[in-house]
């Protein structure tokens, strides 16, 4: 089913989506928020610019955006997949707790802020380009992967990555010599075990956006994990 978004506000657009029993294509989207919020099923393709909080609380549906997306893509997403063929704004994957987000281009500030994981719920976000400052801020779980495939002359991540990170894992396709990490995390070159963990996500990314997976997997990769013995040691009080 094709939904013409022009002239519809976010409530009308989401009502049309919910009423549909088949997969949907939203055309000429222009800033409507909360698209597919909480949806469990359906495959949804979007042309135009979806508004903030695309796929918020997404619970199993699959979203594909043909251009850029705005802020807070996949906010508190629980399951499903979001594929963005352009760039995303700030706070992508905000408090995400499951599912996967694949972005071909760049991410803004605070990608993966407050990502978390629980038992078999492990969210994954793969960014094909570079990211703004505060990547993985307060990250508590899940996996963030940044590839910097498009503009290798740019720094893979801007200032203050991993601020407050206390769980989860980050893979950066760079030696990260020019990146300053905070004291409570460890950044080290990826080992064979890390690369095996990385492989399925990079393979899926490359299949989606037509990259050569083995070339992208060749790295080099830096892995960042929190020093888990006591991440809050003396952060607030002398403990």
């Amino acid at each position: 089913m094709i939904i013409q978004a022009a002239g519809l506000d976010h409530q009308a657009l989401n009502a049309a989506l919910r009423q549909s029993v088949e997969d949907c294509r939203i055309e000429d989207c222009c800033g409507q928020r909360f698209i597919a919020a909480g949806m469990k099923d359906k495959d949804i393709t979007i042309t135009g610019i979806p508004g903030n909080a695309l796929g918020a609380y997404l619970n199993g549906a699959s979203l594909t955006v043909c251009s850029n997306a705005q802020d807070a893509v996949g906010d508190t997403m629980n399951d499903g997949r979001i594929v963005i063929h352009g760039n995303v704004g700030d706070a992508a994957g905000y408090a995400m707790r499951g599912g996967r987000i694949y972005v071909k281009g760049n991410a803004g500030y605070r990608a993966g802020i407050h990502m978390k994981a629980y038992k078999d719920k492990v969210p994954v976000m793969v960014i094909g380009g570079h990211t703004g400052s505060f990547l993985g801020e307060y990250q508590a779980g899940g996996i963030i992967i940044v590839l910097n495939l498009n503009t290798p002359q740019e720094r893979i991540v801007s200032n203050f990555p991993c601020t407050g990170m206390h769980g989860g894992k980050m893979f950066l396709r760079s030696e990260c010599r020019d990146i300053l990490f905070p004291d409570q995390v460890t950044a080290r070159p990826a080992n064979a075990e890390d690369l095996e963990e990385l492989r399925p996500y990079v393979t899926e990314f490359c299949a989606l956006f037509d990259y050569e997976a083995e070339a992208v997997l060749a790295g080099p990769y830096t892995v960042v994990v929190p020093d888990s013995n006591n991440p809050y040691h003396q952060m607030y009080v002398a403990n």
Partner: protein
Amino acid sequence: MRREGQIRIPSGCAIAAVISKDGNKMTGEKIIASMKPMHDRSNGLGGGFAGYGIYPEYKDFYALHLFFDSRAVRKECEAFLKEYFEIVRSEIIPTRKIPAITDEPIIWRYFVAPLHSMLTNLQLDEAELVAQTVMKINTGMDGAYVFSSGKNMGTFKAVGFPEDVGVFYRLDEYEGYSWTAHGRYPTNTPGWWGGAHPFTLLDYSVVHNGEISSYDANRRFIEMFGYKCTLQTDTEVITYIMDYLVRRQGLTLTEAANVVAAPFWSTIERSPDPEYRARCAYLRTVFPSLLITGPFSIVLGFTGGIMALNDRLKLRSMVAGEKDDRVYIASEEAAIRVMEPDAERIWAPAGGEPVIVHVKEGAY
């Protein structure tokens, strides 16, 4: 109803701007349309626009836009203005009656030139006399409020959604080389016509999304230099800071941006550029009280250009785009796509990194 300055309620907002680097004129229609996809960022308690280059036939005169509560205060204000200025034209600002905009005050504009005798007597330059007059009216004359005071530019603002405010003020009938716009979601103040954005002084106008946490520190500093913050809204203090830094201290826009959105010391120390390190360290040392903390994205309008700026932590969204001679700024890409569906090079400037666009010399 209580007004700005009488109450503080503990923001979401929308901003947008367009400028032609070649000085080509645009009506207000596109900038009005840009606010529609961002409707939900406002709550109907304020909208406004600033247009530059809109009064070419009066470009040598200061255009004062005022709200009056009554005819009596208008007469009183005119008598006061005539002591310092020649009023070459005085008229009601034309508006459309529409159901969405109600309770309007008396909205008037004057094109004025400072009296030479007064400038000589007071030993002030023109701009300073106009700035002081604005401060005097806005702090001392109950029921009168100057909301625009630049040359060949004008601010238009009201309580309402911005797309309605633009229709109300007939902005489709004005042509300017740059426009800025704001949709308001007031969170600290009740929402009054004078409290809508843009905030202006002389030809500086500011539209702002955010809430600065350094308001009182900034206010205490800036009030030492004759500015009076009357509305408790943080945007007012940003306007005065920019006027102070750029007009009175003679800083460049980049330097002013480095003052208000100063990089962290750790960022300064790690920069490979010695000139940058020296400049930022100097500005942070000389103007520590003008560091603006807390979330903001702003567009500063001025004669011949605009500057867009985010706070250094980038706690508010802002994107920019280009097409031919035009540069577009907005809180959301959707707003840019409404103005120019084929906008190219959409990018998100980093926190504290100013986007400065000038109209080419001689074209404005």
